[in-house]
């Protein structure tokens, strides 16, 4: 058959390449900024310490950093690689240029929207899903555009066989859609405020089902697809074992999505199933590490190239990082290691091995390699790329090692007892100040890594200037013969299935949905299964507004609200948390990291004035604290204009607010605020400093009301609860 001529769309690849570099710099810069806030808490108080700037506080910048790195930097990096490799592997231009452009600009618009709304405090508080509902909808729409474009390209391909990288892309496409939609089911209250439809325990389970799988399907599967294309490409030799890559693919997909419920419900399993599960877990280390080995062994007999080629160096460290974090992950799921690692900086170190080494270095290698291809010119400076490599590698080590040390230090200090049964470090602050030198080293590591990445940006800009841009690259290939949709003689069923793309995708979706349902159904049932506690009552209107301020300020980024049933935690924080205490928590606010102490039993522990002073200047009540000042909370009037809408929204979700509660909400709120101001005025210092300001109308009062309520329901303290 005649060869057809067609053009690869290089322009779209280039657009994603620039976006990757731009958002990489931005995301890492914000990361460095939040790392510096640990050692210089007053760093961003440009307007003086009494005028802290709300949108530059840690709690709002941290989600900006995580979202920018995950969805903006790695996201664009994935699309960059997918748009380049898909066209070549399928011997076809992307399905539709307009869809490609919509995908690109839509994604960038979402990033800009996130970069504006997150510092403004418009956040749903759920980690890596903080964006509010209108942006969530935009994400889903753009994802669908990407999906149509990808599937469309597969359909018009000129290559019968579908290489394993494409399978990884399809799995990413389908699974992220399912995860994202289920975790972001929200009840909108206003244009930029919503409540999760799940509460407490259920919300936590759904959120971490998402959190776990998002790491798998956004930060792992697409990057593995890229690895299977770009590593052979750069090393100029086929992947070590294609068979292993197929096993790697299917195992990874099923391991994450299907094995989930048996992790969650392990103790409910009959013994034969537990045994089978154990055998399985052991077996599964093999394919997961098989992926890493497969990547590294692709370079067999090419190690001399690795010495000379900075791109291969990036790949080697990236794949090693993948191996490290996939080893560490299962280790951290062991009960005794988890008891040590959870809430500490170990986790932060762990995820950064994944982000800096696996994702960051993989993308850096791809960007360098593509620059030469896209601009048809050698890289501006190989030496600079080598410098980037060494700065980056050093940066990773300087980042991760101090945080491992910090993590273990924290865990052991939190748990150490005196012979008389009291805690050695009863003051949480001691465990913070102890690791400050580690935070300083981490910031140095981050600086090194960012510097390396800026060298990449310079290198690519120079390369682009020297080369000539080929917007549309001519290629030719024989079109696929039309063959019957039926299986033809001698054709294997999987080969047949591969060429029926739509069917393949639908079956993959069905497979994942069955797996998802098996996991989701118990999560839906759990709501009615949480033991109700009679004394747990809904929040009062003022407390509800205070809780929304807590969410807005991102307090959950540093403070957990989940006291584990350990002697050391009960001793430090009080009675351990019960599932029934969270039934009115839309969303849950358990947090995942204790930079500061747990606050679940903070209610009633200090008086209102302590909270007031602590919010104004944490150092005044807790010398050495690294918490930000929240001085805007005494300046901003509490905006309770949506109070009734919020309460009726929550009532629809099952919070027992009666219509009288809702109609009398404003009055109730004012009365409780008045009460708090009266109690604040008992302190003469407060009266002399703030006596003339109308504190009862300010946001701080709502936040104090919420903090004083926390964890008090089961103390039998009913005077703050709604009747």
């Amino acid at each position, binding site marked *: 058959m005649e060869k057809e001529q067609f*053009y690869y769309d290089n322009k779209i690849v280039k657009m994603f390449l620039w976006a990757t570099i731009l958002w990489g710099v931005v995301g890492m810069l914000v990361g460095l900024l939040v790392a510096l806030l640990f050692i210089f808490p007053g760093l961003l108080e440009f307007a003086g310490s009494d005028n802290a700037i709300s949108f530059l506080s840690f709690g709002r910048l941290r989600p900006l950093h995580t979202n920018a790195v995950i969805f903006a930097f790695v996201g664009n990096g994935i699309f960059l690689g997918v748009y380049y490799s898909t066209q070549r592997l399928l011997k076809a231009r992307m399905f539709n240029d307009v869809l490609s452009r919509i995908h690109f600009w839509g994604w960038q618009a979402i990033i800009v929207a996130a970069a504006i709304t997150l510092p403004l405090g418009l956040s749903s508080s759920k980690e890596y899903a903080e964006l509010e509902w209108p942006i969530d909808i935009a994400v889903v729409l753009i994802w669908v555009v990407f999906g149509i474009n990808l599937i469309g390209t597969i359909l018009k391909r000129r290559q019968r066989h579908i*290489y394993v990288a494409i399978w990884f892309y399809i799995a990413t496409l389908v699974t992220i859609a399912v995860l994202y939609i289920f975790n972001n089911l929200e009840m909108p209250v206003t244009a930029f405020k919503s409540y999760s439809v799940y509460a407490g325990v259920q919300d936590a*389970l759904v959120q971490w089902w998402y959190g776990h799988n998002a790491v798998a399907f956004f930060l792992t599967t697409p990057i593995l697809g890229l690895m299977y294309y770009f590593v*052979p490409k750069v090393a100029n030799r086929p992947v070590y074992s294609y068979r292993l890559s197929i096993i790697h693919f299917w195992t990874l997909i099923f391991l994450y999505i299907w*094995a989930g419920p048996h992790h*969650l419900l392990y*103790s409910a*399993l009959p013994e034969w199933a537990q045994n089978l599960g154990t055998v*399985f877990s052991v077996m599964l280390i093999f394919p997961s590490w098989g992926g890493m080995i497969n990547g590294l062994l692709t370079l067999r007999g090419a190690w001399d190239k690795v010495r000379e080629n900075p791109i291969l160096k990036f790949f080697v460290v990236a794949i090693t990082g993948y191996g490290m974090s996939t080893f560490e992950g299962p280790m951290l799921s062991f009960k005794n290691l988890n008891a040590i690692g959870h809430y500490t900086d170990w986790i932060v170190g762990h995820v950064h091995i994944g982000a800096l080494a696996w994702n960051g270095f993989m993308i850096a290698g791809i960007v360098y390699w593509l620059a030469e291809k896209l601009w048809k010119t050698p890289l501006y400076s190989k030496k600079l790329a080598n410098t980037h490599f060494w700065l980056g590698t050093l940066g990773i080590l300087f980042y991760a090692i101090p945080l491992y040390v910090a993590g273990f230090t924290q865990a052991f200090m939190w748990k150490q007892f005196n012979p008389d049964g009291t805690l050695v470090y009863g003051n949480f602050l001691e465990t913070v100040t102890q690791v400050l030198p580690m935070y300083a080293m981490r910031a140095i590591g981050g600086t090194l890594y960012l510097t390396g990445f800026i060298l990449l940006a310079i290198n690519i800009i120079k390369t682009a200037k020297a080369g000539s841009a080929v917007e549309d690259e001519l290629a030719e290939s024989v079109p696929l013969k039309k063959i019957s949709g039926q299986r033809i003689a001698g054709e294997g069923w999987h*080969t047949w299935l591969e060429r029926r793309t739509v069917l393949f995708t639908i079956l993959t979706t069905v497979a994942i949905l069955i797996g998802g349902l098996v996991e989701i159904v118990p999560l839906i049932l759990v709501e009615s299964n949480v033991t109700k506690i009679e004394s747990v009552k809904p929040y009062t209107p003022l407390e509800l507004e205070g809780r929304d301020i807590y969410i807005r300020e991102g307090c959950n980024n540093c403070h957990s609200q989940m006291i584990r049933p350990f002697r050391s935690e009960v001793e430090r924080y009080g009675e351990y948390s019960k599932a029934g205490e969270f039934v009115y928590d839309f969303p849950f606010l358990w947090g995942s990291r204790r930079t500061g102490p747990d606050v679940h039993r903070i209610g009633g522990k200090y008086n209102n004035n302590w909270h007031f002073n602590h919010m104004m200047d944490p150092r005044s009540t807790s010398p050495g604290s690294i918490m930000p000042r929240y001085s805007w909370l005494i300046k901003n009037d509490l905006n309770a204009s949506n109070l009734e809408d919020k309460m009726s929204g929550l009532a629809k979700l099952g919070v027992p607010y009666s219509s009288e509660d809702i109609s009398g909400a404003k009055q109730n709120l004012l009365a409780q605020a008045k009460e708090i101001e009266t109690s604040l005025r008992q302190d003469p210092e407060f009266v002399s400093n703030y006596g003339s300001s109308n504190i009862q109308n300010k946001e701080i009062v709502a936040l104090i009301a919420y903090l004083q309520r926390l964890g008090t329901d089961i103390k039998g303290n009913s005077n703050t609860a709604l009747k």
Partner: protein
Amino acid sequence: MLKFIKHNLSSIDGVEIYPIISLVLFFIVFITMVVFVIKLPKGKIDIVSQLPLEEDNNNKEINHE
């Protein structure tokens, strides 16, 4: 951390069927896949694994700029 709340899941009546379904499905799919992969003909494996390397060397490029 979720281990402290997982008992809420395991006390649901008949919930053990879900992990068993998932385990059994996974087991079947995994074994089928391994068998399928082992039985793949060498020829096809070689063709497919060469796909990324098929360079577009003979392709001409044009510059629209």
